[in-house]
């Protein structure tokens, strides 16, 4: 569904992504793990169009989207949940969700999707008139995921959904991610919490200082010695 070929990104003189290639097939959860500064977020931002590409290609269902603007990519079904729970704090939960469907014109379906989001996250329905800034961290994470779903994405890009959340909540968020995927949305997940990410991912890539150093199924990587040593705290 999504294919990246030899992607290169520079921040000024810093070569942030070096010839990255990866594929996400329809219906998969693919995770990108790696240490701080490895280029995980850069990869997501480049896919969603927030960063410029210096070289290489991004294909969505065979069609190049490398030079499309971010809004055009959202229209094609790529939706990003940015890192760090970026809600609109002064707006209500409802208004936040409404903005997720900003580019859509099909009012009836929007209403249906809103119902779906409320069903998936009952706490959001309960708090729909509250300003989003007053929600707890976990609720805010649910809100940004709900907001991203409001654009009816075909592929959802999740950037560190577990960041700063209590372990119990992390587990909940990950089971929701799995649910969303089972309902038919393809997911590309960037995570520092490698063990959690590998446990739900079909396939995974490991990024190190801007290059992909390893790839395989979630299970394979979770069992690999190098991964255990570097990311999972194993011996």
């Amino acid at each position, binding site marked *: 569904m999504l294919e990246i070929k030899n992607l290169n990104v520079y921040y000024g003189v810093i070569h942030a992504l070096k010839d990255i290639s990866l594929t996400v097939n329809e219906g998969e959860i693919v995770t990108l793990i790696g240490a701080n500064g490895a280029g995980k977020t850069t990869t997501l931002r480049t896919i969603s169009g927030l960063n410029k590409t210096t070289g290489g290609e991004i294909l969505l269902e065979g069609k190049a989207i490398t030079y499309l603007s971010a809004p055009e990519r959202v229209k094609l079904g790529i939706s990003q949940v*940015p890192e760090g729970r970026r809600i609109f704090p002064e707006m209500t939960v409802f208004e936040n969700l409404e903005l997720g469907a900003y580019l859509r014109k099909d009012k009836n379906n929007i209403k249906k999707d809103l119902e779906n989001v409320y069903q998936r996250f009952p706490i959001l329905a309960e708090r729909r008139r509250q300003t989003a800034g007053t929600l707890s961290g976990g609720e805010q994470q649910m809100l940004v995921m709900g907001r991203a779903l409001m654009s009816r994405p075909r592929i959802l890009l999740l950037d560190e959904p577990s960041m700063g959340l209590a372990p119990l909540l992390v587990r909940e968020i990950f089971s929701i991610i799995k649910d969303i995927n089972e309902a038919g949305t393809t997911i590309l997940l960037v995570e520092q919490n490698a063990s959690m990410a590998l446990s739900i991912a079909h396939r995974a890539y490991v990024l190190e200082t801007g290059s992909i150093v390893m790839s395989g199924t979630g299970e394979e990587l979770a069992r690999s010695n190098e991964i255990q040593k570097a990311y999972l705290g194993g011996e």
Partner: protein
Amino acid sequence: MTSVLTKKNLLILGCILLTFVLVQVLMSVGFITSFHEITLATICINIILAVSLNLVTGFTGQFSLGHAGFMSIGAYVCALIVMRFDSVAGFLVGILAAALAATIVGILIGIPTLRLKGDYLAIATLGMAEIIRVVFLNLEITNGAAGLSGIPRYTNWFWMYLFVVLTIVLINNFIRSSHGRACISIREDEIAAESMGINTTKFKVMAFAIGSFFAGIAGALYASYFYFIKPNTFGFLKSIDILVIVVLGGMGSITGSIIAAVLLALVSTFLQSFTAVRMIFYALVLVIIMIFRPQGLLGTKEITDLFKFRRKNERIE
């Protein structure tokens, strides 16, 4: 739902007309003297300036220190036109040309500067406004530092009030539209707005252009009320004055800007009899309000939120 003639709108229209008639009557019986009228004009012009700057700074979150620059463009364009075509028609054409000229310059300045954020944007807009001022200072047609005098006076209570109402209604409707929502989302979180597929540059420039449009109108009204304009009238301090009204009323509150504009004009008029300590008191009032209400008088709320007619969230639910 679809009709414009809802109970609420009729009530608002009634209030608007009533205010107009009331002030008109008070003026004709001499309760509002010509001295008071100057304060009234200041209030009206400041409301237009503050509400339009609030769209840029309060709602879209783009900190601009150049509003007086756009005002000056409006003032000069209108003055030059109305001095040549000395009639009400000339005045109205002047206002329209003033607004359009300010909008065009606003777009031209907005496209390069709105890439900047926060302090950098403030400095860039400040610089742009200074450039506008220096251009007027050196042009022959604007008569340099001496400025233009003897501008025919067509601005009266009727026109001022009309444009104040138009400004408020149009900007309010813009903010409640989906475009306005996009602008607010940029203030709330630009990265999130971008990842929702909102073209942030487009909406920032749009807000800036609309803000300049109304600043141009305010400048035009100013020129045709005070007979006389010179480049230094529209310097850095004028931009700060407008910003003070916006911050004081609450960034993101239209009614807040209106109240603050009225309040500051009244305070300043009242203090006119104490010339020596006037600015000290004025500054003290500002400091005190900022200490006790750092979010401004109304914050991001509107005064009408106090008596809501219908909860806006019930639209889709």
